[in-house]
């Protein structure tokens, strides 16, 4: 342990202790750090000039300018709140639409139970389902097919809707509304899920190490531990991966966050990615794609299941 460790640990103490020293600080106008500036020729910026040039600020002392500025601020504030109101109203509309469409709710074709009312897109080659006459296999397409599926609400009388499919990933999505009624539980519906491996899976050791350092630009400094261990021969290529259920079981058994972290580490000592600039983020992927993973945020003591969709959006499912 060194002084840096202590300094870092101090950043992780509970918020009430941090609040003790922050309570008197007006955040909008943080106190000037005049004492420290004595040793530095560079002037210190404050909240007013952090994002603007000082020369532009000087005009703010003019009464005319101040009046215009105040009026502009008022207009901006009103517009902003109108925008917020509109956004929340739109969200409600979308929510209502979603709730309406839940009549057709189904499980994911892979049989994985997703949080209810969550829409996701997955790639499948075939879709198998059980209908009233027995098990059938619907060959949707020999090539990869995108399915837009919804989570299931009832297990006894499920309805599977393939809302849209594509012949290939690149082809523009055409809508083929095909409704298949099943009586089976969600687990009876199985497909072969196509996992597109993450690019690091085909990289050399040096490339993977470099990739970890430049992930998300130069800020997220970290490393792809699992892949590196595999390339170094420390871990088998097909080494078991952690599952969401395992983590849930640990938490349900009454273990606290630290105990869960230790237990995960003992069973899976090589997380797929560990890094971060300020916070420590540990990723345990659920497959080689890296799009479906468990994210452990060490400092905030949170564990989440995250699915990264092709359109760039993320689905968060808090495990803790």
């Amino acid at each position: 342990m060194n002084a840096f460790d202590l300094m870092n640990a101090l950043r992780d103490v509970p918020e009430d202790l941090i609040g003790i020293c922050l309570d008197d600080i007006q955040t909008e106008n943080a106190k000037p750090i005049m004492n420290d500036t004595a040793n530095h020729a560079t002037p210190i910026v404050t909240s007013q000039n952090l994002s603007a040039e000082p020369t532009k600020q000087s005009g703010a002392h003019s009464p005319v300018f101040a009046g215009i500025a105040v009026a502009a601020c008022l207009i901006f504030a009103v517009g902003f709140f109108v925008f917020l109101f509109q956004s929340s109203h739109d969200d409600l509309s979308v929510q209502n639409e979603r709730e309406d469409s839940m009549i057709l709710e189904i499980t994911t074709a892979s049989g994985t139970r997703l949080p209810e009312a969550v829409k996701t897109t997955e790639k499948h080659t075939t879709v198998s389902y059980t209908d009233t006459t027995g098990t059938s296999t619907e060959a949707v397409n020999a090539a990869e097919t995108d399915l837009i599926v919804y989570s299931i609400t009832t297990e006894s009388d499920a309805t599977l809707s393939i809302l849209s499919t594509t012949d290939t990933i690149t082809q523009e999505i055409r809508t083929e509304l095909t409704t298949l009624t099943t009586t089976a539980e969600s687990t009876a519906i199985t497909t072969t899920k196509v996992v597109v491996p993450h690019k690091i899976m085909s990289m050399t050791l040096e490339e993977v190490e470099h990739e970890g350092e430049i992930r998300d630009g130069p800020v997220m400094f970290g490393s792809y531990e699992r892949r590196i261990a595999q390339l170094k021969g420390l871990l088998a290529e097909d080494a078991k991966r952690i599952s969401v259920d395992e983590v849930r079981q640990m938490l349900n058994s009454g273990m606290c966050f630290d105990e869960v972290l230790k237990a995960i580490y003992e069973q899976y000592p090589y997380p797929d990615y560990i890094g971060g600039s300020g916070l420590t983020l540990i990723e345990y992927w659920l497959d080689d794609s890296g799009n479906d993973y468990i994210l452990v945020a060490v400092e905030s003591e949170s564990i989440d299941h995250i699915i990264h969709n092709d359109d760039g959006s993320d689905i968060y499912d808090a495990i803790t």
Partner: protein
Amino acid sequence: MQTDSLIITLLQKRDEQALQMIRSQYGALCFQIAYRMTGSREDAEECVSDLLLDVWNTIPPHCPDSLRAYLTAIVGKIAIKKYEYSHRLKRGGTQFDVALDELAEILPSSDMRVEQEIEQRELTAVLTAWLRTLPAKQQRIFMQRYYLSDSVQEIAEENQMGISAVKMMLMRLRKKLKDYLRKEGLL
């Protein structure tokens, strides 16, 4: 704070307006903390930029109770890393640093990293427990000095104490902490 809730809501909606609000609301405070730790305006500005990216990447899923505490904690960590990095660069040519880096390479990084995190959390737990044993005034002075990096003079003025009294209190607190860490088997 109402603004904090608004910022967090905007972040959850992936609205970049939230970052502008953080910059205007907390930019100066975070810059100040980073500047005091790194001693460089450039580094401090980079810390604030890195902070915004970190916040963007972590909220959601995280939803801090106190945004201010969350931001200052993260920017402090970023500043520590930045300080270590820039000092390593400055010392760059020394054989000691090269030797350290060489040794670090042969260590199994995963074992080290995750274990370090676990140890760091143990240290935090002990540090938290120790801080809670202190009277409020001592807690505040310790945090002002080692969390905000306030100068002794500023601490003295804000707490209406003499400079020498603050120095003496800080010295005693450090000694207390050392004893506590030793008692907990961390030293």
